[in-house]
């Protein structure tokens, strides 16, 4: 059982993710944007085990959100999820993306999420 934060501006995906990960037995908190995610971490007292972050959100700031979260919680692994793998792989983004532990596609399956969360927890 792990405490997980997910930031995503797509409410359908957010809901499906929350239910699915909760069904796996983890505790899930959600944020609908980058700023909300940062605020959630600042006010949180228990600490998250893994943070999932959608890199391409309508209000932007994916890269700066990544940096802010990494600064606030340096020990928490951050996993970037995106529907646009080709954009994240571009040289413009590569350097900034180094602070993310993993990059995952939006169409990742539930049992793959389970394995990734467990692997990240073991490393901790």
């Amino acid at each position, binding site marked *: 059982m792990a405490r997980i934060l997910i930031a995503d501006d*797509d409410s*359908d*995906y957010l*809901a*499906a*993710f929350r*239910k*699915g990960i909760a*069904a796996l037995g983890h505790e899930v908190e959600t944020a609908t944007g980058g700023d909300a995610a940062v605020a959630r971490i600042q006010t949180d007292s228990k600490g998250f085990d893994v943070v999932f972050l959608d890199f*391409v*959100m*309508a*209000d*932007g*700031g*994916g*890269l*700066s959100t990544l940096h802010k979260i990494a600064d606030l919680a340096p020990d928490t692994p951050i996993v970037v999820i*995106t*529907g*646009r*793998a*080709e*954009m994240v*792989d*571009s*040289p*413009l*983004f590569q*350097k*900034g993306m180094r602070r993310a532990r993993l990059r995952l*596609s*939006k*169409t*990742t*399956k*539930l*049992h793959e*999420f389970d394995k990734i969360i467990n692997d990240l927890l073991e490393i901790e």
Partner: protein
Amino acid sequence: MIQAERQIAPLERRFEDRFTQDRFLRRSAITFTIITLFIAGSVLVEGWFLGHDVFVRLFPGFAAMVPSTATSLAVLSAVQLLRLTGQDRIQPLVSWAAVGVAVFAIVNLGISAAQIGSIDLRSDRMSLATAFGLVLVAATQVSHHLGPRAAWVGTLLATVGLFLASVALVGYLFDAASLYSFILLSATALHSALSLFLLFLAHLVATARTNWLRNFLGRGPGARLARLLLPGAILIPAGLTYAAAYLVDTGQASSLLVRGMLVLALTVVLLAALVTFARVRNLELAQSRREILRLRDTLDALNVAAFVFDHYGRGLLMNQRAVELAGPSERPEDWFTDGRFYAIGTFAPLHGAAHPASLLEGPPPEDALYVGWLDIHGRNRSLRLSARRLTSEEGALDRIIVTVVDETESWNAKDEIAKIERLDAAGQITGGAAHEFSNILGAIQLTADMGLMNAEGAAREGFETIARACERGARMTDRLLRLSRDGLGLPQATDLVEALASIAKLAGNMMPESVRLSVDLPPHSHYAYVDPADLEAALLNLAINARNALVASGQSGEIRMALTTIDRKALISVSDDGPGMSPETLSRATTPFYTTQGEAGGSGLGLSQVEGFARRSGGDFDLRSKLRHGTEARVTLPLLDPDDVKAGRADPGPADLSGLRILVVEDDPQFGDVLPASLADVGADVAAFTNAEDALASFDPAAVDVLLTDVRLPGGMDGMTFAKHIRARAPDLPILFLTGYTEEGTTTRDDVGGIVLRKPIRLSMLTNAIDILRTRF
């Protein structure tokens, strides 16, 4: 041109034709030699054999041509004749004959020299001068064995010989009696001297193209003048001297006075020649000036910028358009070497044959050069440069004419840009759509996965179906993204041979049994500056298209993948022997989303991806097809210099912007986030704003080196207006505009200036653009 001139002055012009001249020279040389052979033969046969004294000495009391001289002259004439008529097979024999004559003459010379004190001046013998002359003729004839670079030796020997023979002839002309009392010339027969004269002249005429006689040839004004004055130069001094001698002999004037008059007359003749010469030179200069002026008038009427350079790449003139383009610089060549040129599309600096300066040296390339250039307002222009080298008939008066066409606003360029814009748009739309689809599919996927954890029986089957459909959807969005890669990839020096071999292997796995794939690659590496993933996607697209065409036709077939290189370009060809395309299908083939395989799952982006890749990589794509005759797709890519690749110079990467202070105004949420971070990565000091008002409020001209602003900005002020305000406070600040693919215009207004860049932008392109903009002209 030549036709017209012939009509104007048939005779004179016809002689100026090089071919006619050469034929005339050769015939003259042969004629002179035959005359010599005839003289020597007559002396031997008619004179000595049949005993007619008139052939031996022409006039009673004249020196005789002795049999040894006649024989030597006959042999040397024969040698000369064989050489002139090109009897190559017996060349060595002929040369040995000449050497034999020379040895014989030297022996004669030696014997005469040994008894020089006791020679009877009036005896019939081979004279010292004749023997020396024979040696010179023989030496002239064998001198060609020294090779073409020593042609001057033959020329020198023949010229000296010609002069000596002339001395004897002039001696006969003026005072034969005293000629005989001069030991060296005594016993020299008139026809011996004439024969030697003709042989030397024949040699000089035959080799006129390589000796001083060439100044009489050709159509230049100098040659014309020389030909005009030649008879006078020979006849006038002789005529004047004869007249003087006549005056003295008849006692009409004293010898001294006549000498004075002779001096005066010769001086007048020389001065006249000098004046004529100077006049011709001046006329020639005026003529060439007039020609240049007329050329400039002609060029001024053209709608392109034209520069004229001499053989050494020194500027001779610029037309009006060229002055407008390059500014009124003192030396036009400076514009070619110092102008701010860059590669269109990447803003990378230019080197070697790709740089306009290369047009001024070496043979001009056949293809036009397309380059980007920053004008005096700092605006980016697209130029097409082509060079022509004009060579005169003599090969001496080289002119290089470089014409420059500004393609920035031309229809052509607009069409190209529209094409690329369409591709960019297609890529962006697909990218955006794929993102949305990922969100949708991801939500369905996770929900179905969760259902699978809890459900049993029929419900479980339903969730499994949903999960499988999601997998297919995920693969599909992946493929869409790959097909429409929007150029954000990282180009690098890529070995095409190696890349094609591995792509062919991949493509081979996709082929059904009925389709054979063959690969034809050169043995050595060839490098191009491309994104390897882009290249792979492009060639796989082509292979898949060919495969689908063959499979659809229901026949077995062959796909051929080949790489060839021409000059500095690589040609990658993917061809099939399938059904081919009709002209209508072919004309729309590269349009995004156009597909003939709608049902079979084609995205319609394949060929437009290939075209986009080729253009981004500085190359070209074309498709040739004929119904029932198969299809050939050809991608041409510029090749890199292998030495540059080995030395690591081929991969420029982003330019270093260390210490440069950049003001960024950009409201796009994704881009506005990444842009400052990326610029900071390459060393720039970045201040970022999301609207123009804030940026203007805190603008300090002394603290900014470059301004980078989006054209479309939120609030009341757009990028252009913002830049105008900035211009008012910092007139020299380099400005870059960023614009989306849907917006109009690729250049800025005169009062603002600055480069316009279209999104999406590569970091290397952006940093190159900034780098080139900050280097002031």
